Protein backbone atom coordinates (compact mmCIF):
# COMPACT_ATOMS: atom_id res chain seq x y z
CA UNK A 1 0.00 0.00 0.00
CA UNK A 2 2.66 2.47 1.01
CA UNK A 3 4.37 1.87 -2.33
CA UNK A 4 1.34 2.66 -4.41
CA UNK A 5 -0.02 5.58 -2.44
CA UNK A 6 2.41 8.17 -3.89
CA UNK A 7 1.46 7.09 -7.41
CA UNK A 8 -2.18 7.68 -6.60
CA UNK A 9 -1.44 11.05 -5.02
CA UNK A 10 0.61 12.12 -8.03
CA UNK A 11 -2.14 11.03 -10.41
CA UNK A 12 -4.73 12.96 -8.45
CA UNK A 13 -2.43 15.98 -8.36
CA UNK A 14 -1.93 15.90 -12.14
CA UNK A 15 -5.64 15.61 -12.76
CA UNK A 16 -6.34 18.47 -10.39
CA UNK A 17 -3.61 20.52 -12.02
CA UNK A 18 -5.04 19.87 -15.49
CA UNK A 19 -8.59 20.71 -14.45
CA UNK A 20 -7.48 23.84 -12.59
CA UNK A 21 -5.51 25.12 -15.55
CA UNK A 22 -8.43 24.49 -17.87
CA UNK A 23 -10.71 26.32 -15.46
CA UNK A 24 -8.35 29.30 -15.16
CA UNK A 25 -7.92 29.34 -18.89
CA UNK A 26 -11.67 29.36 -19.48
CA UNK A 27 -12.12 32.15 -16.90
CA UNK A 28 -9.52 34.57 -18.25
CA UNK A 29 -9.69 33.68 -21.92
CA UNK A 30 -11.07 36.10 -24.46
CA UNK A 31 -14.77 35.49 -25.01
CA UNK A 32 -16.47 35.71 -28.35
CA UNK A 33 -18.68 38.80 -28.70
CA UNK A 34 -21.61 36.94 -30.14
CA UNK A 35 -22.28 33.27 -30.81
CA UNK A 36 -21.35 32.16 -34.28
CA UNK A 37 -22.84 28.92 -35.53
CA UNK A 38 -20.27 28.54 -38.29
CA UNK A 39 -17.38 28.79 -35.87
CA UNK A 40 -18.72 25.97 -33.71
CA UNK A 41 -18.80 23.62 -36.65
CA UNK A 42 -16.46 20.68 -36.85
CA UNK A 43 -13.28 21.71 -38.64
CA UNK A 44 -13.16 20.43 -42.16
CA UNK A 45 -10.82 22.67 -44.12
CA UNK A 46 -13.50 25.20 -44.92
CA UNK A 47 -15.94 23.09 -46.87
CA UNK A 48 -19.35 22.51 -45.27
CA UNK A 49 -18.78 19.77 -42.77
CA UNK A 50 -20.05 16.31 -43.43
CA UNK A 51 -22.14 15.17 -40.51
CA UNK A 52 -23.50 11.94 -41.89
CA UNK A 53 -21.52 10.11 -39.20
CA UNK A 54 -20.68 7.44 -41.71
CA UNK A 55 -16.90 7.61 -41.66
CA UNK A 56 -15.14 4.91 -43.58
CA UNK A 57 -12.09 3.76 -41.74
CA UNK A 58 -9.64 1.08 -42.75
CA UNK A 59 -10.26 -2.01 -40.68
CA UNK A 60 -6.57 -2.79 -40.85
CA UNK A 61 -6.25 -1.06 -37.48
CA UNK A 62 -8.38 -3.72 -35.93
CA UNK A 63 -6.34 -6.74 -36.95
CA UNK A 64 -3.20 -4.91 -35.88
CA UNK A 65 -4.67 -4.38 -32.42
CA UNK A 66 -5.62 -8.06 -32.01
CA UNK A 67 -2.23 -9.32 -33.15
CA UNK A 68 -0.64 -6.78 -30.83
CA UNK A 69 -2.45 -8.30 -27.83
CA UNK A 70 -1.31 -11.80 -28.67
CA UNK A 71 2.34 -10.88 -29.22
CA UNK A 72 2.30 -8.58 -26.22
CA UNK A 73 1.36 -11.47 -23.95
CA UNK A 74 4.12 -13.62 -25.39
CA UNK A 75 6.59 -10.85 -24.66
CA UNK A 76 5.25 -10.48 -21.12
CA UNK A 77 5.89 -14.19 -20.63
CA UNK A 78 9.55 -13.56 -21.39
CA UNK A 79 9.97 -11.06 -18.58
CA UNK A 80 10.02 -13.47 -15.63
CA UNK A 81 12.25 -15.73 -17.68
CA UNK A 82 14.71 -12.93 -18.38
CA UNK A 83 14.71 -12.08 -14.71
CA UNK A 84 15.38 -15.61 -13.46
CA UNK A 85 17.77 -16.62 -16.26
CA UNK A 86 20.81 -15.64 -14.18
CA UNK A 87 19.56 -17.70 -11.23
CA UNK A 88 19.04 -20.73 -13.44
CA UNK A 89 22.54 -20.40 -14.89
CA UNK A 90 24.08 -19.95 -11.46
CA UNK A 91 22.29 -23.09 -10.28
CA UNK A 92 23.64 -25.01 -13.28
CA UNK A 93 20.31 -25.21 -15.08
CA UNK A 94 21.16 -22.62 -17.72
CA UNK A 95 20.76 -25.00 -20.64
CA UNK A 96 17.38 -26.14 -19.33
CA UNK A 97 16.15 -22.55 -18.99
CA UNK A 98 17.43 -21.72 -22.44
CA UNK A 99 15.67 -24.71 -24.00
CA UNK A 100 12.41 -23.76 -22.27
CA UNK A 101 12.48 -20.36 -23.86
CA UNK A 102 13.88 -21.66 -27.14
CA UNK A 103 10.76 -23.75 -27.65
CA UNK A 104 8.52 -20.81 -26.74
CA UNK A 105 10.45 -18.49 -29.01
CA UNK A 106 10.28 -21.01 -31.83
CA UNK A 107 6.49 -20.90 -31.59
CA UNK A 108 6.61 -17.10 -31.43
CA UNK A 109 8.86 -16.84 -34.49
CA UNK A 110 6.72 -19.33 -36.38
CA UNK A 111 3.65 -17.22 -35.58
CA UNK A 112 5.31 -14.02 -36.69
CA UNK A 113 6.61 -15.68 -39.82
CA UNK A 114 3.15 -17.02 -40.60
CA UNK A 115 1.55 -13.61 -40.13
CA UNK A 116 4.08 -12.04 -42.47
CA UNK A 117 3.70 -14.84 -44.97
CA UNK A 118 -0.10 -14.65 -44.97
CA UNK A 119 0.15 -10.89 -45.53
CA UNK A 120 -1.87 -10.11 -42.42
CA UNK A 121 0.56 -7.34 -41.57
CA UNK A 122 0.51 -5.78 -45.00
CA UNK A 123 -0.58 -2.17 -45.37
CA UNK A 124 -1.09 -1.00 -48.85
Amino acid at each position, binding site marked *: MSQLLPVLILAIFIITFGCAMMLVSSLISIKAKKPDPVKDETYECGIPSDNSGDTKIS*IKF*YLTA*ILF*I*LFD*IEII*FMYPWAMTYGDFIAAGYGVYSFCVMAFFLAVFIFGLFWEVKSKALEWE
Partner: protein
Amino acid sequence: MLDTEALMRIGLGHYIALSGIIFSFGMIAVMMRKNVIVMLMGVELMLNAVNLSFVAFAKEAGNLNGHIMVFFVMTIAAAEAGVGLALAVAIYKKFHEVNIRFFEQLKG
Protein backbone atom coordinates in the same frame (compact mmCIF):
# COMPACT_ATOMS: atom_id res chain seq x y z
CA MET B 1 -24.03 -10.23 14.04
CA LEU B 2 -21.27 -8.17 12.44
CA ASP B 3 -19.12 -6.32 14.86
CA THR B 4 -16.96 -3.42 13.72
CA GLU B 5 -13.78 -5.10 14.83
CA ALA B 6 -14.25 -7.81 12.22
CA LEU B 7 -15.14 -5.26 9.57
CA MET B 8 -11.98 -3.35 10.27
CA ARG B 9 -9.73 -6.37 10.06
CA ILE B 10 -9.33 -6.85 6.35
CA GLY B 11 -9.03 -10.52 5.62
CA LEU B 12 -9.65 -13.02 2.89
CA GLY B 13 -13.41 -12.77 3.34
CA HIS B 14 -13.48 -9.11 2.40
CA TYR B 15 -11.66 -9.76 -0.84
CA ILE B 16 -13.89 -12.73 -1.63
CA ALA B 17 -16.98 -10.60 -1.05
CA LEU B 18 -15.62 -7.88 -3.33
CA SER B 19 -14.74 -10.44 -5.95
CA GLY B 20 -18.22 -11.95 -5.67
CA ILE B 21 -19.90 -8.61 -6.22
CA ILE B 22 -17.79 -7.80 -9.27
CA PHE B 23 -18.43 -11.28 -10.63
CA SER B 24 -22.19 -10.78 -10.28
CA PHE B 25 -21.99 -7.51 -12.15
CA GLY B 26 -20.17 -9.27 -14.96
CA MET B 27 -22.77 -12.00 -14.99
CA ILE B 28 -25.60 -9.48 -15.14
CA ALA B 29 -23.93 -7.84 -18.11
CA VAL B 30 -23.69 -11.15 -19.92
CA MET B 31 -27.25 -12.16 -19.13
CA MET B 32 -29.05 -8.91 -19.68
CA ARG B 33 -27.20 -6.52 -21.93
CA LYS B 34 -28.09 -6.78 -25.58
CA ASN B 35 -24.93 -5.42 -27.13
CA VAL B 36 -22.51 -8.24 -27.93
CA ILE B 37 -19.47 -6.11 -27.20
CA VAL B 38 -20.79 -5.14 -23.77
CA MET B 39 -21.43 -8.82 -23.12
CA LEU B 40 -17.80 -9.56 -23.91
CA MET B 41 -16.85 -6.84 -21.45
CA GLY B 42 -19.00 -8.63 -18.88
CA VAL B 43 -16.99 -11.80 -19.48
CA GLU B 44 -13.79 -9.84 -18.90
CA LEU B 45 -15.25 -8.46 -15.69
CA MET B 46 -16.07 -11.96 -14.43
CA LEU B 47 -12.59 -13.24 -15.24
CA ASN B 48 -11.07 -10.27 -13.44
CA ALA B 49 -13.19 -10.92 -10.36
CA VAL B 50 -11.98 -14.51 -10.32
CA ASN B 51 -8.40 -13.29 -10.64
CA LEU B 52 -8.89 -11.14 -7.58
CA SER B 53 -10.02 -14.13 -5.55
CA PHE B 54 -7.06 -16.17 -6.85
CA VAL B 55 -4.60 -13.53 -5.68
CA ALA B 56 -6.35 -13.22 -2.31
CA PHE B 57 -6.24 -17.00 -1.85
CA ALA B 58 -2.59 -17.06 -2.87
CA LYS B 59 -1.77 -14.56 -0.16
CA GLU B 60 -3.77 -16.54 2.36
CA ALA B 61 -2.10 -19.81 1.41
CA GLY B 62 1.36 -18.26 1.34
CA ASN B 63 2.40 -19.69 -2.01
CA LEU B 64 2.43 -18.48 -5.57
CA ASN B 65 0.27 -21.03 -7.39
CA GLY B 66 -2.56 -18.51 -7.42
CA HIS B 67 -0.39 -15.91 -9.13
CA ILE B 68 0.57 -18.35 -11.87
CA MET B 69 -3.08 -19.21 -12.36
CA VAL B 70 -3.93 -15.51 -12.70
CA PHE B 71 -1.22 -15.20 -15.31
CA PHE B 72 -2.75 -18.04 -17.30
CA VAL B 73 -6.29 -16.73 -16.90
CA MET B 74 -5.19 -13.35 -18.23
CA THR B 75 -3.64 -14.96 -21.28
CA ILE B 76 -6.72 -16.97 -22.03
CA ALA B 77 -8.97 -13.97 -21.40
CA ALA B 78 -7.03 -11.85 -23.85
CA ALA B 79 -7.18 -14.58 -26.46
CA GLU B 80 -10.90 -14.98 -25.85
CA ALA B 81 -11.49 -11.25 -26.21
CA GLY B 82 -9.54 -11.23 -29.46
CA VAL B 83 -11.48 -14.08 -31.02
CA GLY B 84 -14.83 -12.92 -29.64
CA LEU B 85 -14.38 -9.45 -31.02
CA ALA B 86 -13.21 -10.83 -34.35
CA LEU B 87 -16.45 -12.81 -34.62
CA ALA B 88 -18.61 -9.90 -33.47
CA VAL B 89 -16.94 -7.58 -35.93
CA ALA B 90 -17.28 -10.09 -38.76
CA ILE B 91 -21.01 -10.35 -38.09
CA TYR B 92 -21.34 -6.60 -37.71
CA LYS B 93 -19.62 -6.04 -41.03
CA LYS B 94 -22.10 -8.32 -42.73
CA PHE B 95 -25.40 -7.41 -41.07
CA HIS B 96 -24.74 -4.07 -39.35
CA GLU B 97 -26.11 -5.38 -36.10
CA VAL B 98 -24.64 -5.97 -32.65
CA ASN B 99 -27.85 -6.94 -30.90
CA ILE B 100 -27.65 -10.39 -29.38
CA ARG B 101 -31.30 -11.10 -30.23
CA PHE B 102 -30.37 -10.81 -33.85
CA PHE B 103 -27.56 -13.34 -33.56
CA GLU B 104 -29.98 -16.01 -32.36
CA GLN B 105 -31.58 -16.23 -35.76
CA LEU B 106 -28.41 -16.73 -37.77
CA LYS B 107 -28.28 -19.93 -39.74
CA GLY B 108 -25.27 -21.46 -41.40
